[in-house]
């Protein structure tokens, strides 16, 4: 398992595109989104980083057929899938720390006034990410990369749009989830576990 996680982290952080994304995504979002409620901007940033990093390592193997090489190593398919799901937590923690430091620097420089750590948004982002990845991962394991990419983009646009609306002052999404974080997280975890079991079954029976 540690070998798989090490591989994905190395892949994600060795890519030039990922480096560009990590550096420029925050200023781009701050520039593009006019936020009346900046905490939702924070939500967009930690959710986007976690989600996109998570999917990036996945697409490497699906697109390049490198999963044939990975599955020729002493590792079981169950471990490969489990690792994908567990990495969400790693990327989520990384995103909180990275975004926190980045926003703290921006605040210190006086460029933008935005909170660099917001526990209530973290409580909302976590179940959102659990559900998002629970929907998208099985697509990558069952269908062609092209179809999986569509699912991935659709889910990302979904997260982005509702959160952008909330950041702009629309309370639809916040009314749905705020104050119900614990029950939402429990439901999200159940969906995530069902998705994990489904993905393991799909991957164990897949021809590579």
């Amino acid at each position, binding site marked *: 398992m540690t070998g798989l996680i*090490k591989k994905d982290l190395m*892949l994600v952080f060795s890519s030039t595109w990922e480096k560009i994304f990590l550096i420029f995504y925050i200023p781009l979002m701050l520039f593009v989104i006019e936020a009346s409620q900046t905490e939702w901007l924070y939500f967009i940033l930690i959710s986007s980083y976690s989600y996109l990093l998570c999917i990036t390592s996945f697409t490497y193997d699906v697109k*390049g057929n490198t999963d044939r090489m990975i599955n020729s190593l002493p*590792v079981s398919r169950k471990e490969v899938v489990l690792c994908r799901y567990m990495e969400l937590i790693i990327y989520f923690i990384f995103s909180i720390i990275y975004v926190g430091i980045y926003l703290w620097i921006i605040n210190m420089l006086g460029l933008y006034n935005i909170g660099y750590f917001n526990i209530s948004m973290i409580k909302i982002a976590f179940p959102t990410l659990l559900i998002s990845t629970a929907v998208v991962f099985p697509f990558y394991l069952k269908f062609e990369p092209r179809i999986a990419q569509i699912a991935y983009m659709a889910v990302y646009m979904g997260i982005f749009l509702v959160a952008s609306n909330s950041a702009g002052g629309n309370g639809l999404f916040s009314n749905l989830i705020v104050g119900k974080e614990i029950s939402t997280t429990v439901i999200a975890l159940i969906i995530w576990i069902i998705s994990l079991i489904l993905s393991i079954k799909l991957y164990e029976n897949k021809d590579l």
Partner: protein
Amino acid sequence: MDYILEVNKLKKNFKNFTLNDISFKLEYGYIMGFIGPNGAGKSTTIKLIMNLLKKDEGDIKIFGMDNIKDEKKVKNRIGFVYDENYYYETLTINQMKNIVSSFYKNWDENQFKHYLKEFDLNPKSKIKTLSKGMKMKFSLAIALSHNADLILMDEPTSGLDPVFRRDILDILYNIIQNEKRSVFFSTHITTDLEKIADYITFINKGNIVFSKSKDEVMENYVLIKGGTDLLDKDIRKEFIGIRETSVGFEALTNNVEKMKQKFGDSILVEKASLEDIMVYTVRR
């Protein structure tokens, strides 16, 4: 007898292709060549052995263990080389090595460095900058650096120059000097196998044509040459394959005695190469 690799009645159905009752066995300390034309089922069989494809029926045992139930144990002792590069193109040789080595219990760093030097590979080079031959060399260096007992190779010599092909064959020959190790490799460059293989398994259209020792194969199959006046409809049927020209015919048979009885001195009998055996059988 203990076998390092046993494939028994293996079946796999695709839409347009079926791998049918594939069976063969490889003993410890030998090299088996797996030959057949493109699309015969060589890569499919290797993928089934590595559990990259799901079999429909049959058994595969490696080191006496089931290739699925004991997958991790088995794969820890297999060195694999595939016909295409499946490594991450954006990483350097060293980064890729760091990833792969963490999966193997018996990774030998000195051995890997030795092969990098021998194959003239720069550890800082990105995989995407390597030529096909260099990528194959890198795959081989990885496969040979974790003390694998079974080396499984799918077309390892295709696209390589003759000098490096000969080097690979020497390396493989040295590997099996340790009697606990074996090599199984598919190729359509049959001259490579004539140099080093102990056993030949021939597959065509998803069926095993034969799986025998190389000596047995080379003794059994011969080329018959003669004038076309010797041929008639029934005789043609007795050959495995035949090529006719305006001056005569050349045909493959595995029953030389019968042919000698039938034609006497009016035919010429020559040793058949593996290529002859493959070509005439496929054209049948």
